[in-house]
């Protein structure tokens, strides 16, 4: 009977150390620690996220794929900057860098934009890291130009598919839509070339998720991701606070879900009502703590940082 932990004791102690340091980092900076439910009656409508539904209730209940919506409802009552260490769940995500249950550090900064949030993130990771770290920033478009010599704004779908077919042999590029092509290139071709801590920011509007559109360039959204050696660690936004725009994006999600034959979920009306009541400008980010531990401890697989994987 193999009852022993998947992670070794040193890793378990390191997790405790970084959690202690994270809490002290945010306490010192005036952020309030909050806790929101992992089990709730609404869930994310994002097409690329699969929710785990929990049976045994009169109405559907879901394990939360991120604490984002609940934390925004807290922000809407004026609690100021907040942070949370929580578990999140995503169905079907299993692999060297994925586990269906994982740990997130999510925080929101009122009055910040995404660039200021990146600054704070650099500070946090430098505090947690055992070594000196340096960070670079590059826009999504510049990254594609640099690595693939591809101009995301100008490329047409047939040409983009050709790029995919050429760079990733053995894939059915002809069946992919524009964003699927970009995702394939970023995940399979570009990410493996990335080195060190690197922020990628200003995502195309089609990949805005819950980010605000950039005022001076409405072809991109104020979204960023942090990578380390091509491993995605964090995703953040200047948060969308406009309830109508948010509703429109939810409805787009639902339509796309219907078209793909994916499960339909009710739109989170409580989040929309909270946005309508008024949400101050803020920026928020989710940082995968399991992967951060992997990177800090130079481990290869998420299993090596999880106490148990079942």
């Amino acid at each position: 009977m193999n009852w022993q932990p998947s992670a070794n004791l040193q890793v378990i102690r390191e997790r405790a150390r970084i959690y202690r340091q994270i809490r002290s980092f945010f306490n010192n900076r005036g952020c309030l620690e909050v806790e929101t439910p992992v089990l709730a009656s609404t869930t994310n409508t994002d097409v690329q996220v699969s929710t785990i539904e929990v049976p045994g209730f009169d109405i559907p209940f879901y394990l939360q794929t991120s604490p984002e919506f609940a934390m925004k409802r807290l922000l809407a009552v004026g609690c100021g900057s907040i942070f949370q260490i929580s578990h999140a769940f995503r169905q079907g995500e299993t692999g060297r860098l994925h586990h269906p249950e994982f740990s997130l550090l999510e925080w929101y900064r009122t009055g910040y934009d995404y660039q200021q949030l990146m600054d704070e993130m650099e500070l946090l990771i430098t505090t947690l890291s055992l070594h000196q770290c340096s960070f670079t920033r590059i826009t999504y478009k510049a990254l594609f130009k640099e690595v693939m010599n591809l101009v995301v704004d100008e490329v047409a779908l047939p040409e983009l598919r050709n790029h995919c077919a050429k760079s990733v042999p053995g894939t059915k590029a002809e069946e992919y839509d524009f964003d699927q092509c970009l995702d394939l290139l970023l995940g399979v071709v570009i990410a493996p070339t990335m080195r060190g801590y690197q922020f990628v920011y200003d995502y195309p509007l089609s990949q805005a998720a819950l980010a605000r559109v950039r005022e001076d360039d409405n072809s991109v959204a104020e979204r960023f991701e942090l990578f380390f050696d091509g491993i995605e660690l964090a995703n953040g936004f200047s948060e969308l606070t406009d309830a109508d725009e948010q509703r429109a994006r939810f409805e787009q999600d639902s339509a796309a879900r219907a078209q793909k034959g994916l499960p339909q979920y009710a739109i989170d009306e409580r989040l929309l009502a909270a946005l309508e009541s008024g949400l101050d400008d803020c920026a928020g980010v989710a940082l995968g703590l399991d992967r951060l531990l992997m990177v800090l401890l130079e481990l290869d697989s998420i299993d090596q940082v999880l106490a148990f994987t079942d």
Partner: protein
Amino acid sequence: MIGVFSIGTEMASYSTNEFRSGLKIMLDGDPCAIIENEFVKPGKGQAFNRVKIRNLKTGRVLDKTFKSGDSVDAADVVDTEMQYLYNDGEFWHFMDPQSYEQQAADANAVGDARQWLKAQDNCEVTLYNGSPIGVTPPNFVELEISDTDPGLKGDTAQGGTKPATLETGAVVKVPLFLEIGELVKVDTRSGEYMSRVKK
């Protein structure tokens, strides 16, 4: 969502989230085995499965990238433990020790395994649609040396090696002190001599 064979009706299929090493799938009309499966999901985007696959007919290894959620046909491939019986010059004959059912594998299916096949040894025979397409010998076999240079007396401690032809035709490097007629244990995966076996 577990892929299940449904015989005689529609072909069974596997979704990418069932991919794991060892899974047998159909690809471009050939049965293949998944060697490695890596889940790649950039940001909030489309997930992909990058897979290393061995074509079970040709032995070739290739890379494929599937969009997660896609499905592929299952290959009707089973690995069965069978006893090697004999070679009739054209076919190698195997028997299922439970059912006594016999299978004849051609040179293509037997491949490099032929040099390790000794009557009565148990092998893994890969059947595709009921016919052999591959044979895996036991990891370790004990075979008699049928030909080698004379042994160097007294040299039992260390020193060089010499080629020895075994009863099945395989040629392996053995220590200098071994003689024709002696029994040796060989690792068939590396083709390396392991030890001398007392008869």
